[in-house]
């Protein structure tokens, strides 16, 4: 958090890479409290990521499109394989599922407003659908989670799509957790649990196991909603190649792959940092699976986990995604980690730019809280405008890159437009190391 005192080296002080200060603080904290660290956010360690890729702009061998003049479309249709009413979104950036409970009702409403303003979708989360977000969301995806908290068929029928959640990138194989301080009366009532207790969300669905069962579950969801709504399947990135194949075999219309940088509301730090694979490594696996099934672009792929800029959007799409989803960045757009709360962050032992105690419920920005006074700090209309601005910027940035690569639709970006800066990124993303034609590991097993 604080910078190095400038003279540590001259004092003969040398920080260990193995036992760096964060590691030492972690051991000290564990020794003092006897409980592991639970926090929000995604993996903080340095990982091969979109920053390790670059685009090859057009010049002689390819020709670019005129910025601001020549059309570069951004729309995307999701879930047209089986559903009578697929989603048609204006931009390929969607808002990921974040629960009411983790977030305040105002924050959920703001997400709905922002997304609707630019013609994209938002997603419910563990804990059910609130009228605030349904009311303000033009396209609302309803999550169907293992806990089934707040799950009811009336809301299911109100949804525009259904997302069967198997896992999250931050914690593939893990269930959820909402600590007592965030279980307000309303949250408790929606989840049918006593207020104030620490709530666990199951890690497995209660009434199906494995792809054969999931096929029947998806069939049931289609039957209940009269085959109107697209069915998504969301998986945390781990054995992505196989998981995507099985999700598609189970009938998914859309597969959502969330890499390990993906945010969470509350998970053990050890889980966030050590389970799952980076987003960059997951995308080519997912695309390969879809291609082999002959279903790339027919079953759409949504990628999430660490999307921050239009460049990230463009890179994910160039690798074969049809759309992306954002969580953390959307919260930041609403006002999360805003320096104007510096004093209050300090008061709860954090700092603007570092705040990740989403589990704790004392968010000075009023986003990851159920405290009515804190939550009232976020004006949903203002938050929605900020999010819409940010989504517009992401879209324009992605278009800028797509035009530079000569594409009239951002979806037409392709791996051929990319090179990697590091050998790791080249191997994971399956694009050549910049300046070479070398793709490490090409031809190996997935």
């Amino acid at each position, binding site marked *: 958090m604080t910078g190095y005192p400038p003279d540590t080296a001259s004092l003969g002080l040398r920080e260990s890479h193995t036992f760096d200060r964060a590691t030492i603080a972690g051991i000290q904290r564990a020794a003092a409290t*006897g*409980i592991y660290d639970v926090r929000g956010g995604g993996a903080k360690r340095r990982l091969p990521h979109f920053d390790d890729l670059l685009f090859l702009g057009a010049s002689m061998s390819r020709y670019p499109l005129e910025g601001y003049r020549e059309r570069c479309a951004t729309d995307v249709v999701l879930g047209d394989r*089986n559903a009578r009413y697929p989603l048609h979104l204006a931009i390929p950036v969607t808002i990921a599922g974040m629960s009411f409970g983790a977030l305040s009702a105002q924050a959920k409403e703001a997400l709905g407003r922002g997304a609707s303003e630019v013609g994209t979708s938002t997603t419910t989360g563990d804990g059910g659908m609130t009228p605030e977000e349904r009311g303000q969301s033009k396209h609302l995806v309803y999550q169907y989670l293992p*806990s*089934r908290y707040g*799950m*009811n*068929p*009336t809301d*299911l029928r109100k949804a525009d799509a259904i997302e069967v959640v198997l896992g999250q990138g931050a914690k593939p194989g893990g269930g959820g957790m909402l*600590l*007592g301080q965030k279980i307000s009366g309303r949250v408790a009532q929606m*989840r*049918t*649990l*006593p207020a104030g*207790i*620490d709530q*666990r969300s*199951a890690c497995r669905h*209660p*009434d*199906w196991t494995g*792809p*054969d*069962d999931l*096929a*029947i*579950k*998806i*069939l*049931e969801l289609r*039957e*209940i*909603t*009269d*085959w109107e709504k697209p069915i998504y399947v969301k998986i945390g990135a781990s054995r992505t190649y196989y998981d995507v194949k099985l999700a598609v*075999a*189970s*009938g998914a219309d859309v597969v959502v792959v969330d890499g390990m940088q993906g945010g969470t509301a509350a998970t053990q730090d050890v889980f966030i940092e050590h389970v799952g694979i980076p987003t960059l490594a997951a995308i080519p696996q997912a695309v390969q699976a879809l291609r082999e099934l002959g279903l790339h672009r027919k079953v759409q792929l949504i990628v999430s986990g660490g999307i921050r800029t239009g460049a990230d959007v463009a890179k994910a799409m160039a690798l074969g995604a049809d759309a992306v989803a954002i969580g953390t960045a959307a919260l930041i757009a609403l006002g999360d980690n805003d320096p104007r709360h510096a004093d209050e962050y300090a008061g709860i032992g954090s700092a603007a730019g570092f705040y990740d105690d989403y589990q704790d419920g004392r968010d000075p920005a009023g986003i990851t809280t159920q405290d009515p006074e804190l939550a009232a700090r976020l004006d949903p209309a203002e938050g929605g405008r900020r999010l819409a601005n940010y989504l517009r910027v992401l879209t324009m940035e992605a278009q800028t890159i797509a035009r530079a690569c000569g594409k009239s639709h951002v979806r037409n970006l392709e791996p051929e437009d990319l090179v990697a800066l590091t050998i790791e990124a080249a191997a994971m993303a399956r694009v050549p190391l910049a300046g070479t034609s070398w793709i490490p590991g090409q031809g190996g097993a997935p």
Partner: protein
Amino acid sequence: MAPLSDPGTVDPATVGGAAVEAATLTESAADGARTAGTVTFDLAATTVRALNSELHAPSATSYEVLRPQGAHAIAAGVHAPLTVDIRGHAGYYCAGMNDGATVTVHGSVGTGVAENMMSGVVRVRGDASQSAGATGHGGLLVIEGSASMRCGISMKGIDIVVGGDIGPMSAFMAQAGRLVVCGDAGDGLGDSIYEARIYVRGAAGGLGADCVEKELRPEHAAELAELLTAAGIEPTGAYAPTRFRRYGSARRLYHFATHNSAAY
């Protein structure tokens, strides 16, 4: 259960374990044939899709389903006070998410009967497979025979009455509602249970984490008698409430604490 060859379609012929009960069919019940106020669907002649779309926008109040052939999602998502009689065995998620209908299966059912039921009554004359009544928020599920494992898993307000036994890991993380078992309960009963109440007449295998036997007080005897009566079981003699034991949460795992780590 045989995997579906094509997840996009319902093909009863590929579904394992289905016994066809066609012998007693006297008249041909084509797609929604109507006799004396009851609309009949013969699932050997029409599809679950046709049945369910009628049940979701009903033109009658009483329905009969013939030759269900173990098909999945029969009468799933009904949200009107209809009467549906299924004459034979049903597959997975029969009467799933039921909201208000009275559904009777004159046979046995596969996994997840009445899963996430909101209201209404689902009665199974035979046995039920896994996860019967899973996550149900309301209504009454009666299984006259026995139910397999995970009966009442994650239940959230539903009442379940089982005439026979239930399998292991039943009422796992059960949040609310009541589970009545006239026979025995398998291992791990009520693991990590919240506020649901369990009544077992026979032997309960091992109890799951945080599930304990509790005193059966008069108010419990009264609610048990009510539930048995609603299920069609006279709460006297061998089925008198005093023959049951009550189980519920010790509420020791409601808050995370390191000394509980062995229990998690």
